[in-house]
């Protein structure tokens, strides 16, 4: 009987039946699912060889198959799912344990921070390391450190959690195999001792590049957009807050701190359209201060408390009568993507020149 040919992972392209490979099981995760026959569990993870790494789904997996072991795997198959090739194991698939070690070539796709997406959870990214925060926690009776950073490239920024590995703040870094996850509508990268860290030379300006709204497909921090405000939320304007807990108060006093006097603040939510698409934006007082000309004294004046109508008119004038450029963080919520503004300005001649240059460059 002729020996069945073993395919390398890099040669697996498209849909192949009766596939035979030699690979290392890099990870095994289980997921429970409900089918017409009741609850069932399937497994998924990554396998790799010296040519690359690929995801798998195991509809059936022998209990003897373990992570970090090398197997000759016969009669599995590959299929393209969401534009990515994936390997599938089922009842027909045979696993033969091999007592040998193989080198695994990790191949992570490089992404600009703006383009990170949950379809690819292990990625390569580059950016400037900023805003270090250190937290201590205890695991198995041992004190450990978690380092938190912001990683910024020319397209946006993302939070980074590093378990035990300290990065050099202020330096540009390339991370290979960082794990992407999502929490509370924001993306975050996690790095561990398995993540490749290389310090590189990058030229990153103080401001992110302008992004078209059509190109914002996922949560991303610190992006810059431009456009017109095409509608403003009815409840935009003067709001009251509890100075103790900072919560917005709809009543005359805070239910949790009824003794505290209320404090005035400004909030606006609106839709920005740049011709390519539109996005919902919210903003607090900070980014609106210069644009509206509303000073803190005006909000704090107890002799003449601010007037709702007056504030709303100032907001309308500031936001509705000029093309704007806005910087902020985009998060995913139940309504889709929305941006929380950190800076809002009117488009002036200089900014218009920058935007035009970016537009022109697309046709060169």
């Amino acid at each position: 009987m002729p020996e069945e040919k073993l395919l390398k992972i890099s040669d697996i392209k498209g849909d192949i039946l009766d596939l035979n490979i030699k690979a290392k099981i890099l990870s095994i995760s289980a997921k429970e699912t409900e089918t017409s026959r009741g609850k069932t569990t399937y497994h998924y993870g990554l396998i790799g060889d010296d040519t690359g790494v690929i995801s798998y789904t195991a509809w059936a997996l022998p209990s003897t198959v373990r992570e970090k072991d090398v197997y000759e795997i016969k009669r599995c198959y590959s299929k393209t799912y969401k534009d990515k090739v994936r390997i599938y194991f089922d009842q027909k698939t045979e696993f033969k344990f091999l007592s040998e070690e193989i080198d695994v070539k990790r191949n992570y796709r490089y992404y600009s921070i703006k383009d990170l997406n949950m379809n690819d959870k292990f990625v390569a990214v580059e950016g400037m390391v900023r805003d270090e925060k250190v937290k201590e926690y205890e695991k198995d009776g041992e004190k450990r450190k978690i380092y938190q950073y912001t990683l910024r490239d020319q397209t946006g920024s993302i939070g980074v959690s590093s378990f035990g590995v300290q990065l050099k703040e202020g330096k540009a870094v390339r991370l290979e195999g960082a794990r992407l996850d999502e929490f509370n509508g924001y993306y975050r990268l996690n790095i561990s001792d398995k993540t490749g860290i290389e310090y590189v030379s990058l030229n990153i300006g103080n401001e992110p590049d302008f992004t078209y709204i059509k190109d914002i497909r996922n949560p991303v921090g610190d992006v810059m957009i431009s456009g017109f405000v095409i509608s403003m939320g009815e409840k935009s304007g003067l709001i009251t807050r509890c100075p103790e807990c900072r919560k917005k108060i709809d009543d005359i006093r805070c239910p949790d701190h009824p003794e505290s006097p209320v404090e005035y603040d400004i909030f606006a939510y609106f839709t920005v359209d740049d011709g390519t698409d539109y996005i919902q934006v919210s903003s607090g007082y900070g980014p609106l201060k210069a644009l509206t000309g509303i000073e803190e004294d005006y909000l704090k004046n107890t002799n003449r408390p601010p007037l709702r109508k007056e504030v709303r008119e100032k907001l309308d004038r500031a936001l509705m009568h000029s093309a704007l450029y806005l910087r902020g963080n985009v998060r995913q919520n139940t309504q889709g993507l929305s941006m929380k503004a950190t800076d809002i300005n009117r488009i002036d001649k200089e900014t218009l020149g920058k935007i035009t240059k970016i537009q022109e460059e697309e046709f060169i």
Partner: protein
Amino acid sequence: MNDRKREPARWIFSSELRDCNSTVSEGEGDFRKEFFLTPGGSMGRRVLFCGKLNAKTEDGDMTKMTVADPTGAFYVTFFSKDFNQHVKEEISGVQAGDEVLIMGRTSYFRTDEGKMYVNINPETVRKVSSESVDYWTRRTAFLLRRRILAIREARNNPEASIESLVGKGFTEDEASGVLESQKVYQAYDIQKLEEIAMTVNSARPSENAMKLKDDVAGYIRKFDPLGGVSYNDILTEFRKKGSSDSDIDEVINVLWGDGEIFEVEKRKFKSA
């Protein structure tokens, strides 16, 4: 970008809307929606544009406005109803000569000869800065240039599909609009739109337009005793002299913007 229901506002030049002679319908009965489909591959029911408010006339509950962008004029008609008093207030805040931004829904009427006119029912009218107008003009030219590239791709490859155009870097929205437009406007000379997209970034009138300006003004003046001259007659006259449509459009726009001519009725001009 989001799974949203809001109808997008299309940023297009007036000349692209003027050359539009086709609509696409969706749904039936009360749910029927009619979208304009331009030769430049823009499809929608709402437009957003900036320009100079050249005329504003009120007649009872109706207000008519003409707004000039660098390529021609948008025609806006507003009917005051109980539900749109905020728009009425916005309209009263703008005057002829102001630079304005208007967003509105489109409606269509067709002449017996089959010519289609697009009217705009405003939802938002506001005075804006000249930088804002420049921003709109340049962004609209950019969007038009992208669609023109997609049209060229589609014309060069009859097998072009939404997927193949998206693969070349166009958005799904651009790809579907362009492919839909090519079913109707196969013979349309895209060169005209390309010239607009390439030259409109310049705020100043082109050299050609400046050379033609006095001649066109003189021609229009000749017809003043007859109550004005139609846009089509001006085109016919100056085409004979070898001028391009885009140059003639630009001149009319410059004369209009400078207040040297005005529109006595739709597409009929007279000296001021």
